[in-house]
């Protein structure tokens, strides 16, 4: 290898490292340049005055003719040297030993979360006050071919005991896009031992406040008593309509009550979320312990028939002003904010048990083989900072200018960046609702909190959900044969479960 090879290779290094050049090329404000020069001048002037003073004293102490002799000449020449090289020329106020040794902490995430990673890194670095390891975010490609190739190689790496230090992933991708998720079924991945137990780290954490999180949702990341995954966002099937268009004395509180509902308009409205999340009408989809689905093919056939028959979108949409017909997420909250003068009826999709099933749409986990598990966790726990739920983000005063001003790190982090990763609401749901991110009416806030309290099951959105939703679309949208489609879907679900 010649130095030409090295120079050319340098031209192709990862662009992220070029950000360091900003230290050299950042334009300094004019006032700082003037200050620097003034300080330099003042230091030089003071040193000259002091030196001259010392010489004067020395000359005064040395009497008579000796001043004109050789010793006097030596002193004068020393003065000249000092004037040319003032002693305080080398300020070096910052320690050179700021190096963070070791490899970077690698966190795998989605490309769509790129903006969020910048905000997260800024907040993390700020909170660590310079004592932070290098973080390297690896983005899964969005180009399907490149993505498939990278996922295949990542799976091999993970199986071989390598891979990134941590994962910050969207499980919603399985349902809402054609892109292949890294883990088709995150819960299966957890059971396969891919993730590190986090109990000790969570217990030691000063940031994760368990009283803030929705326990039912958070516990979905547990196997037994061991927490392997940290759910970050979730949503529920829900329809929210204008109460003037649909009088609801009491919304059906179980799936059976939905089916028994005599009000056809109400019934068809409640089928909206069931159509998107058919799996949420069951408490859970899979019995992972025994590797089987929780429902038989006949039960699935019945369920699909029930939803397909009750779903009459055309009739409902003409008569009911709907804010959402499917899920709880930020656009809904913004709509509620915009129409807070109106009265809304909240119709969450109940499951067979009479509670609500939540879909976890984004989660974080540490690789079981992480080289830097603590450092990786310390980045991930930043996601649980309450300040990030607000529009202000983490606020710090900047005193470096004449007029101190507030700097906000990660404003809109949850309401914008996290939503780019996956639609949903923070697992710190009540704190999220109480933050200043949304100004919805007290009634609406209360109704949503009731929904949160009714959550009695939570599962990670997976390919199983998208397969069920796909079957309904085929039957209702494309008039596919009901029994044949259900048989195919059931077989596909079994296959997915066996393979995951």
């Amino acid at each position: 290898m010649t130095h030409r090879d090295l120079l050319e290779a340098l031209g192709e290094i990862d662009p992220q490292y070029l950000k360091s050049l900003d230290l050299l090329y950042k334009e300094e404000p004019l006032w700082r340049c003037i200050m620097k020069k003034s300080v330099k001048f003042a230091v030089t002037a003071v040193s000259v005055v002091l030196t001259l003073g010392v010489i004067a004293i020395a000359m005064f102490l040395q009497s008579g003719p000796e001043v004109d002799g050789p010793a006097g000449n030596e002193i004068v020449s020393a003065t000249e040297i000092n004037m040319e090289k003032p002693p305080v020329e080398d300020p070096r106020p910052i320690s050179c030993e700021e190096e963070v040794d070791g490899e970077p902490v690698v966190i795998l995430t989605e490309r769509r979360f790129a903006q969020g990673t910048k905000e997260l890194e800024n907040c993390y670095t700020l909170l660590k006050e310079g004592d932070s390891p290098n973080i390297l975010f690896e983005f899964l490609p969005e180009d399907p071919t490149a993505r498939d190739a990278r996922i295949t190689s990542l799976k091999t790496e993970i199986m071989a005991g390598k891979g990134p230090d941590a994962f910050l992933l969207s499980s919603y991708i399985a349902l809402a896009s054609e892109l292949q998720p890294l883990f088709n079924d995150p819960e299966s991945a957890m059971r396969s031992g891919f993730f590190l137990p986090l109990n000790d780290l969570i217990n030691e954490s000063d940031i994760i406040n368990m009283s803030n999180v929705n326990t039912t949702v958070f516990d979905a990341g547990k196997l037994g008593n061991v927490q392997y995954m940290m759910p970050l966002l979730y949503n529920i099937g829900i329809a929210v309509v204008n109460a003037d268009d649909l009088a609801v004395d009491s919304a059906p509180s179980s799936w059976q009550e939905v089916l028994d509902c005599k009000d056809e308009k109400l019934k068809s409205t409640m089928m909206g979320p069931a159509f998107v999340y058919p799996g949420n009408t069951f408490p859970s989809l899979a019995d992972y312990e025994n590797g089987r689905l929780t429902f038989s093919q006949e039960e699935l056939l019945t369920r699909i028939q029930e939803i397909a028959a009750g779903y009459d979108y055309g009739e409902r949409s003409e008569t009911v002003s709907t804010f959402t017909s499917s899920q709880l997420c930020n656009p809904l909250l913004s709509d509620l904010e915009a129409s807070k003068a109106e009265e809304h009826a909240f119709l969450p999709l109940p499951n067979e048990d009479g509670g609500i099933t939540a879909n976890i749409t984004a989660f974080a986990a540490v690789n079981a083989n992480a080289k830097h598990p603590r450092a990786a966790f310390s980045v991930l726990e930043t996601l649980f900072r309450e300040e990030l739920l607000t529009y202000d983000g983490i606020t710090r005063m900047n005193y470096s200018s004449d007029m101190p001003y507030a700097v906000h790190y990660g404003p809109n982090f949850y309401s914008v960046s996290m939503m780019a990763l996956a639609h949903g609401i923070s697992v710190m749901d009540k704190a999220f609702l109480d933050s200043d991110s949304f100004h919805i009416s007290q009634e609406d806030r209360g109704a949503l909190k009731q929904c949160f309290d009714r959550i009695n099951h939570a599962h990670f959105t997976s390919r199983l959900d998208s397969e069920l939703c796909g079957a309904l679309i085929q039957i209702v949208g494309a008039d596919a044969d009901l029994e044949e489609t259900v048989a195919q879907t059931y077989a596909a679900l079994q296959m997915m479960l066996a393979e995951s």
Partner: protein
Amino acid sequence: MTDDKILDLLFQRSQQGLAEARKKYEEKLFRLADNILENRLDADECVNDAFLAAWNSIPPQRPDPLLPWLYSTARNIAMNRCRVSSAQKRGGGWIPLAFDELRDITENEDTPEKALDRRELIRALNRFLSHVSQKDRALFLGRYYAGESYSAMAQRLNMTEHSCQVRVSRLRKKLKDHLKKEGLL
């Protein structure tokens, strides 16, 4: 104007996007090109070429962040110009003095047994850069990516020129050890 807005304008094929990009980054690119080419006229042309490349490549590319992409483009153009200029001079030094220091690390001649996969070398450099502090990265890349003088770097980083030289020399040694460890030397 933010990079996002500049990119949006470039995607709309608006000349204003190019004008805003120039306004924001021209000075930085000029400095880099001038360090390498040591000729203000050539540097100016190099910067023009870099912005022309941006105009031709965006869209479909959407380099985010924009500045590192522009740095790479300008540097590649400047290095190519150096190569052409050296060929014309038949053997004249084709790289600036700063880059010549890298001879400390490498062999003088390529040998078949040392021929290596370029991608491997880039990966090794990335790993090396990930191990050093941000300030060291700035020093190393300032010197060997952008051809900065020690005095300019010392001034910007609030260091003395001597400590700057010492630190960069340590980084060269560190890189040499790293490349040896990775089996590339």
